[in-house]
């Protein structure tokens, strides 16, 4: 049989931020690509607060004007708060002091290639739809309501993306497949590349409130209302996010260790409120007259894993489909977008050269591994010796370097010096029981950096 041309150059599984930004980059470069999205957009999604490194992608894709038109709340910074009764924190939250309140403004550090000193908080239903439409505007084909069931890599001349429409099994051929299926990790599962994270086992429950006055938790009420807030709770590794969605709507989520979560839905909701109650100002704010919960609770579990590889012959994994750690620094969407920023170049290169072996995607794989390893280590420091994060943010010698990480600029260095410094302190504190900070270690594994590095 003669080999016909494949249906598309590139087939993309998933129309979240990773998939649509990939489609936009490729279609903008004139490449014939298709997105398969299981849901009918818009659909709700967790992950609503961005970091500034996403701005580069929006700019390259001419998407910034649309972000402005959509009137998403501008995010100028981030704040971390703890309650005022010190002892509880010293005992239970791996070393958070009473005065651990810290905040940063993105404008404190100029970011190369980023002209604005804020990023955005987004309603993911709206944002994901807009980005997908943007990709379609560049000429990407979008199939909504099509759930991919697997990819057939057996034909040496193309890959076939398989799905069913009604009772009919269908498939679409392409030269390269991009897995952007998020935490479903479609290709990673199929090829058995997925490794569950041995250290992080977090769980989240979240919802939206309308009419909650977000300033109740702000130190400087005039300027910080639209920051993201991370409120520490006096329970190990447990915290609350507070993310503005519109002028009046706020997303609130509790992240905790999975073992704290009961099986039943009712008791999980009860647990949400128990957690919130441990910060009375927050509880009162959410329960105040005029504030009401407007979405059902949703929970997210089992979300920390890595992949043995991020690319293979004819396939590239981007966004959550490639790795997920922990949402503490609101980095997921930005990583997803930056995956496409790096990977689309290798994909275009492969299409030009006709070489679709794993090596063709090397630049992407090593860049993203470097970036996510830095994230991983930063997050690990944060959970393992929380006070270090606070101390470094407050220390003028390190503040801007930490801010660089918080802005999402993690891809250039093998390891940023500030992270090396933090890591060596943690290692010293871990191995020396007499160290003054030993008692403040959080209860991750005994040796925080012994992660299952997948490379």
């Amino acid at each position, binding site marked *: 049989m003669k080999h016909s041309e494949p249906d598309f150059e590139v087939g993309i599984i998933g129309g979240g931020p990773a998939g649509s930004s990939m489609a936009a980059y490729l279609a903008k470069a004139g490449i014939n690509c298709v997105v398969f999205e299981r849901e009918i957009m818009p659909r709700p999604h967790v992950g609503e607060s961005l970091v500034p490194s996403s701005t580069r992608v929006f700019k390259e894709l001419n998407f910034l004007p649309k972000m402005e038109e959509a009137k998403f709340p501008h995010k100028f910074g981030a704040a971390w708060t703890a309650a005022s009764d010190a002892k509880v924190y010293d005992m239970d939250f791996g070393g958070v002091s009473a005065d651990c309140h810290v905040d940063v403004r993105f404008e404190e550090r100029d970011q190369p290639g980023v002209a604005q000193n804020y990023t955005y908080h987004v309603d993911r239903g709206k944002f994901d739809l807009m980005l997908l439409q943007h990709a379609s505007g560049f000429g990407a084909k979008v199939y909504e309501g099509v759930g991919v069931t697997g990819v057939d890599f057996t034909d040496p001349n193309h890959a076939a993306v398989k799905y069913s429409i009604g009772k009919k099994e269908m498939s679409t051929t392409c030269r390269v497949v991009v897995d952007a299926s998020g935490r479903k990790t479609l290709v990673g599962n199929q090829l058995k590349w997925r490794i569950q994270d041995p250290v992080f086992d977090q769980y989240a429950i979240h919802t939206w409130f309308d009419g909650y006055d977000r300033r109740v938790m702000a130190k400087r009420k005039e300027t910080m209302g639209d920051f993201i807030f991370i409120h520490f709770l006096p329970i190990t590794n447990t915290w609350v996010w507070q993310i503005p969605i519109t002028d009046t709507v706020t997303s609130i989520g509790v992240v905790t260790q999975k073992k704290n979560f009961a099986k039943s839905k009712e008791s999980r909701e009860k647990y949400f409120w128990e957690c919130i109650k441990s910060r009375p100002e927050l509880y009162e704010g959410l329960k105040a007259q005029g504030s009401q919960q407007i979405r059902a609770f949703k929970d997210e579990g089992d979300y920390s894993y890595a992949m043995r590889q991020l690319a293979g012959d004819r396939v590239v994994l981007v966004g959550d489909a490639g790795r997920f750690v922990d949402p503490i620094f609101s980095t997921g969407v930005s990583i997803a977008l930056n995956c496409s920023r790096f990977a689309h170049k290798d994909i275009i290169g492969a299409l030009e050269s006709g070489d679709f072996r794993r090596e063709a995607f090397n630049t992407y794989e090593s860049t993203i591994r470097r970036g996510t390893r830095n994230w991983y280590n930063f997050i690990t420091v944060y959970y393992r010796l929380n006070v270090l994060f606070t101390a470094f943010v*407050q220390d003028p010698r390190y503040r801007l370097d930490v801010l660089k990480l918080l802005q999402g600029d993690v891809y250039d260095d093998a390891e940023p010096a500030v992270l090396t410094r933090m890591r060596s302190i943690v290692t010293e504190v871990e191995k020396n029981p007499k160290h003054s900070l030993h008692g403040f270690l959080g209860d991750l594994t005994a040796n925080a950096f012994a992660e299952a590095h997948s490379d």
Partner: protein
Amino acid sequence: MTEPGSIKAQLMPFVMENAQSKGINQVSDDDSLTASGIIDSLGVFRLVSFLEETFAVRIGDEEIVNDNFESVRTIEKFVAAKLAAKGEKAATR
């Protein structure tokens, strides 16, 4: 009495400021600063920066141990030893 300019004289204002913010008005030389909460986890970092700046010494991560930072007396002893070591280094150069 504290000698003006002595290690203790320079250390005490820092300790008292931390103590007072925790509602403690008196600190004697052997009081445990950590057990009393005068120096909490973040306070450890502040203390280290304070000592490094005030006495122009470098404190290694491995030196941040309870034996050195337990009380005003142990800190004083620790700083004195650091200063002496520094002096010796300078002298042998």
